[in-house]
């Protein structure tokens, strides 16, 4: 499964809920304000680490660049719009809005 998260973890508990419901082998893709969770050294790193123990965690490059998030929490991978489309094609998607 693919989970997309578009909210900042500093705004609400969307990412937390996503991580709670995500299963081993799922992919979590951070988009829009969701990419703010990927900033290196941020206070939500424990949540990201919990996510990465069971899931692949990706962040969308266009949204990272737009927000000047250049230093990422170690382990988070970057994808682009083409990668996003590939993921949607391969997986059932849940948008954590």
């Amino acid at each position, binding site marked *: *499964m693919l989970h997309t998260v578009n909210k900042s973890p500093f705004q609400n*508990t*969307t990412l937390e*809920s996503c991580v*709670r*419901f*995500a*299963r081993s082998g799922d992919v979590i893709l951070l988009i829009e304000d969701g990419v703010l969770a990927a900033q290196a050294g941020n206070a939500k790193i424990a949540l990201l680490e919990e996510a990465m123990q069971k899931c692949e965690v990706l962040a969308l490059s266009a949204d990272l660049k737009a927000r000047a998030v250049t230093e990422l929490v170690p382990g988070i991978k970057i994808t682009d719009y083409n990668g996003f489309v590939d993921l949607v094609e391969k997986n*059932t*998607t*849940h*948008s*954590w*809005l």
Partner: protein
Amino acid sequence: MAEEIKKIMFTVRKAPHGTIYVYEGLEVKLIMAAYDADISVVFMDDGVFAVKKGQNTKELGIKGFEATYGALVDYEITKVFVDRQSMEERGMTEDDLVVIGEDEDTEEPIKPQVVESDAIAAMMAEQHNILAF
């Protein structure tokens, strides 16, 4: 050969009344019920407030939709679930939940089923589509 029946899940994660999402989502569920689909609905996070009984929107000047939940079973939407952790975190118990219909034979009220998050996660993994409201 008959097409496989689509498994479609609705997730409701927003509180009612503050935004239009929950109401619109309910409309979409009732429309989708007209199609031959295997529908399930999950209330999680603030979405559990959508199925809290006793909502009175009179003073807001808007038509509430709690009564519409009472018709879900009539629309053959019977797979209605509430995430236990979300419910308990918000100070609610099973007694607080709305009725979604009544048993055809016994006329006993039917309520959403309160389930654990891993059960919801397993159901999510089985779906063809998941629509979030």
